[in-house]
């Protein structure tokens, strides 16, 4: 029996430390992959600087008046003729206008009670049509 007691177990009773590096790398890669940096997205616009008033000929202005119900009223310069369109029609309309007059400026006038999303819709359409000269205003009267 004494001989039997001397028999050693061949199974190591230590936690294997050789795979520690693998575990550490696994954690490293896991955190690298799961970390996401939310890149901000949106419609960029450049605001005018304070006191920067530019006189523009009425001929070069396309007024877009956004009503609280989302209907957009288009007025060309000084003419009092009003055309009612939906925001989705603005992209094509703007392309047409620019083809006729490349100095055209989009004056987006939003009604104070109109939801923000309608202004974004119009701004989106103008961006899609490649408009660069956009003026955001509040509709008065």
């Amino acid at each position, binding site marked *: 029996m004494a001989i039997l007691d001397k028999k050693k177990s061949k199974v190591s009773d230590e936690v294997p430390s050789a795979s520690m590096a693998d575990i550490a790398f696994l954690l490293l890669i896991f955190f690298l992959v799961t970390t996401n940096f939310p890149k901000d997205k949106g419609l960029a616009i450049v605001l005018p*600087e304070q006191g920067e008033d530019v006189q523009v000929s009425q001929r070069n202005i396309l007024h877009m008046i956004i009503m609280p119900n989302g209907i957009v009223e288009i007025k060309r310069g000084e003419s009092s003729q009003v055309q009612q369109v*939906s925001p989705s029609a603005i992209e094509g309309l703007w392309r047409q206008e620019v083809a006729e007059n490349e100095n055209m400026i989009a004056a987006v006038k939003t009604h104070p009670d109109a939801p923000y*999303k309608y202004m974004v819709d119009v701004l989106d359409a103008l961006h899609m049509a490649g408009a660069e000269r956009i003026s955001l205003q509040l509709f008065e009267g």
Partner: protein
Amino acid sequence: MPIKGGGFARKSEASSEVPNSSMADIAFLLLVFFMVTTVFQKDRQRPIVWPEAEATQKIDEKLKNIQNIWVDRDGSIFINDRAFEMSEVATIIGPLYVASDRALVISIRGDREVTYQTIDLLQQQLVAAGVVRVVFATMLEQRMTRERR
């Protein structure tokens, strides 16, 4: 013929292998380094419904140069998780804009249903603070899933 080394097989005591017991230390060092250098956004998401736009573009600016201004559905304004009055915005943003070397980009994160009057007042505040670059934060809209408008 003389025996090399005088008959003693001399062994080098310096190991010729790269020590790999410190590999774990290196891995942890990298892990800790990346954890420390990762900067998370300062403010929490607010419960707003994003406006959607097809022309949504990524803002080409460093994250630290982007300042979010949240506009809730009821028109209340939050900057860095704190509520502010509309008239305070210019005095808050002005110094931040100067501190950033005029590189600051303001991201207006407005709820889609907020009235335009609020957004217009906010723009006036930003103009008063001297800010030029503004982004209306939107979600990208797919043409296929676009709702009729």
